[in-house]
């Protein structure tokens, strides 16, 4: 049983996809990120991904790079992450953490898992850790009952999709395009095909991300994905105003409830 099953079960029961919103912890400040995440939870995110700002975010485009840089410049420390996760739980939200691997290694894999679980976090998304290298994390996440969200990409072979789904718990993160994070104008046509391939290997929920920024795009993804993941657009909205975050969340929340067949 995964920690995230209740989230996806409820969405499934309502006949819709889950809305998953990303924000880096500490952006623009630790308190500021708590406020934004609370707004995201209150106005319709079913799950939030709390990002851990990292100095060398190779999977991120300019928007998230700049946000991470700003958080670090404002003095963000890894220990602050757990307070941010706690604040999401306190607001009645569900949180997983998304992080590059080196900060976890330095913190200690086992210690990180323990502190994340204690803060009420439900799991970890690891964009630069593949299951092949994840023995320590698999052991620690089992020990602390945390979900493990590995990624699959359009370039993944069947064997790798199989390995990745067997190693994951909670959901699988399908990157809809070959590329880094960043809002895009059109939904990739690689995503439906990838999700279809994934479904041949697993019944686990599949979240699709990279590039989504509008309710209309969310509606397209909701037609075939169990979760719609939105990152850069939230970062941009957070830089604007709480009202912008609320408006974006509501637009996306409407989107995941009005699935349309992809054009």
């Amino acid at each position, binding site marked *: 049983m995964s920690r995230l099953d209740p989230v996806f079960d409820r969405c499934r029961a309502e006949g819709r996809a889950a809305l998953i919103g990303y924000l880096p912890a500490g952006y623009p400040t630790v308190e500021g990120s708590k406020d934004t995440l609370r707004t995201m939870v209150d106005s319709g995110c079913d799950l939030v991904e709390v990002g851990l700002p990292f100095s060398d975010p190779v999977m991120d*485009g300019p928007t998230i790079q700049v946000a991470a840089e700003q958080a670090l410049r404002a003095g963000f420390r890894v220990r602050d992450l757990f307070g941010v996760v706690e604040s999401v739980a306190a607001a009645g939200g569900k949180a997983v953490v998304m992080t590059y691997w080196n900060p976890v290694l330095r913190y200690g894999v086992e210690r990180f898992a323990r502190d994340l679980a204690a803060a009420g976090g439900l799991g970890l998304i690891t964009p630069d850790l593949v299951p092949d290298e994840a023995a320590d994390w698999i052991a620690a996440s089992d020990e602390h009952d945390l979900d493990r969200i590995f990624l699959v990409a359009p370039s993944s072979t069947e064997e790798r999709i199989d390995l990745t789904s067997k190693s994951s718990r909670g959901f699988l993160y399908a990157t809809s395009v070959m590329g880094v994070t960043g809002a895009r104008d059109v939904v990739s046509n690689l995503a439906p095909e990838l999700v279809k391939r994934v479904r041949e290997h697993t019944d686990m929920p599949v979240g699709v991300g990279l590039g989504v920024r509008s309710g209309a795009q969310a509606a397209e993804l909701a037609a075939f994905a169990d979760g719609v993941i939105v990152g850069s657009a939230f970062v941009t909205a957070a830089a604007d105003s709480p009202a912008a975050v609320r408006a974006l969340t509501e637009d996306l929340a409407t989107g995941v409830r009005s699935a349309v067949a992809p054009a």
Partner: protein
Amino acid sequence: MSPTGTVGSGQFAPTPHDPDERGHFGPWGGRYMPEALIAAVDELSVFYEKARVDPEFLAEFARLLKDYANRPSLLTEAKKFSRHAGGARVFLKREDLNHTGSHKINNVLGQALLTKRMGKKRVIAETGAGQHGVATATACALMDLDCVVYMGEVDTERQALNVARMRLLGAEVIPVKTGSRTLKDAINEALRDWVANVDDTHYLLGTAAGPHPFPLLVRDFHRVIGIEARIQILEQIGRLPDVVAACVGGGSNAIGIFHGFIDDPAVRLVGLEPGGDGIDTDRHGATLTKGLPGSLHGAMSYVMQDEDGQITEAHSISAGLDYPGVGPEHSHLKDIGRAEYRPVTDAEAMEAFALLSRTEGIIPAIESSHALAGAMQIGRELGEDAVILVNLSGRGDKDMDTAVKWFGLGVEGETR
């Protein structure tokens, strides 16, 4: 002399020091990288494994090294420089005489051939000093490949000559303005490009770092340095050196020459790291001396980082050594005690830079000057009976701007 040898022997033969199937040298190496790129490195592994036993590939590579890159490179005794190294005999492996002026061409020609075999038509590369960028642009011109080079903005300024060379050779040079605006950030940007364009693009990584199979294949393409040097020193003095010294940025020239002697336990292998302002300051790039285990740019290795695992900026007067990571095989060699690593400060390197120029009429790259400074220290420790082989990884033309500033060689006679 035919160092690239025949099938199953020589430069591409498996060694007892090869990584396991998934690229681990002990606990180091592997693939700490996005899933989206795994298919590409798998493909590269498959093509490399085929190529290294394919007589046609080996012959083509050997021909390019000989008729295009000017190999074998010379081994020159630095008789007057020896005075500054405690009287020890110092031999220079003259990678500076290769086409494009550094060891980098060895790896680039090999990977460019692999790119062709994989049917890809676009090449991207990172560069620090610009030597890898120039070598890549050169091979791409030769082999009709499109070439894009990422270079930190700081480095485009201090190695402006090489930017011009790359552009003349037809490459697009993209200055990278993020982070520390040096080599590490150029690699980040190249990885971002790769993930978006991996179908038709090969990432021609310039050092023996990164995810498997890069540390293995870059090393193998550079093994020619050690193979030649071993034959040459035996020819010249009838014995092996006591010490082999090489500078270590990512570690490619060092691993290439080390491998010629790795099974000779009496030969000390010494890597010289950029000590910047000194390793007790926070301005240096001595990854193996001061770093901690971590994952950066696709591999587990020693990494310069803070207590939160944020990667720290390296600092070195030498753009080619200004990198907070290092190839995983060096981490392994350090751990098992087969190689030792020492820092050399900017000032020590620049002293060696000037000394070699004046005593031997050879202007070395500032990167290579770190190895020379190391040889000066080690020579003084060991005395005049010692024989030290230095990998002179490149020539110093590209470093004239830095030298002008450091020594006050400008027309105004400006001093530092």
